[in-house]
């Protein structure tokens, strides 16, 4: 009996990510959810710009590459053109929280019926580790060698908290993938985000706190611990909005 094998929605090619980068885990979780919901034939993914720019090589469903930050806008177009398709975007923090903030906020405000997977690793990974809008106060990066100075650069953007103030979005949750338990929770959240779309409920976003061992200058093991020690206190995990659950509570 097979206990665990590679999901069918994940292509059989080696991933280009650095050793220990948790992008691969999130790719696998998305593929597992696509398999379990049986939606591989009608899923369209939107790839971002960033480390995961080549996500279109890794998923066996149809994929579109969007301009930097514009994945939610492209997803809006695809979903409106053919509402029978399942449309998801897979974006990093430089893509979603910096260049594409406007697209993200407005797709959420319009409650577009799409699923957004948001990878937050507090740094610009692909370009070599520059400070991102999500870099923590005091975090040392290529462009903040003395640590992020909040008097000059401001404070990190908390996307889940920000979007939860809008009436629009259906479901917002922040998870991480730095332990087996956390990976299982993350899968539940991602599955719910896809199920919401199938049920026609609207904009669902899962923010995944992810590691970047190379640009943080750590071993993969230290990076997973850094998520626990530094990232989770600033970006608390949990469900930030779940409109259906709130309605049920009221009723």
């Amino acid at each position: 009996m097979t206990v665990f094998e590679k999901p069918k929605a994940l292509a059989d090619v080696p991933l280009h990510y650095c050793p220990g980068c948790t992008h691969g885990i999130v790719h696998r979780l998305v593929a597992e959810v696509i398999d379990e919901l049986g939606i591989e034939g009608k899923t369209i993914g939107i790839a971002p710009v960033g480390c995961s720019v080549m996500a279109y090589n890794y998923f066996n469903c149809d994929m579109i590459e969007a301009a930097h930050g514009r994945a939610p806008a492209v997803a809006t177009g695809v979903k409106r053109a053919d509402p029978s398709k399942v449309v998801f975007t897979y974006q990093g923090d430089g893509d979603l929280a910096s260049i594409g903030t406007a697209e993200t906020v407005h797709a959420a405000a319009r409650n577009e019926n799409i699923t957004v997977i948001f990878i937050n690793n507090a740094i610009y990974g692909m370009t070599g580790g520059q400070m991102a809008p999500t870099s923590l106060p005091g975090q040392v990066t290529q462009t903040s060698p003395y640590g992020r100075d909040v008097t000059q650069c401001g404070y990190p953007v908390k996307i889940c908290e920000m979007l939860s103030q809008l009436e629009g979005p259906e479901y917002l949750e922040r998870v991480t993938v730095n332990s087996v338990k956390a990976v299982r929770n993350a899968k539940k959240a991602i599955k719910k985000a896809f199920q919401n779309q199938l049920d026609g409920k609207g904009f669902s976003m899962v923010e995944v706190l992810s590691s970047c061992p190379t640009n943080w200058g750590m071993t993969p093991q230290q990076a997973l611990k850094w998520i626990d020690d530094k990232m989770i206190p600033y970006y608390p995990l949990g469900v930030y909005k779940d409109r259906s659950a709130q309605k049920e509570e009221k009723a």
Partner: protein
Amino acid sequence: MAKLTFKTDSCKGCGLCVDACPKQVLVIAKDKINKKGHHPVEAARPENCIACAFCATMCPDCIITVEK
């Protein structure tokens, strides 16, 4: 009995699976090098494996298949 299969040439030797294993089955093989130039993971004590699939859950490159 549990059986572990590795796609050794896709392994990047990050060691996340080694830490996740509750039975210390896996080690990074320091005396081997795969096609990518990394030290790959191998099962040093396969008889201890309980097929919990924790290693496969944490593997970023999805190289582990677990059967029992």
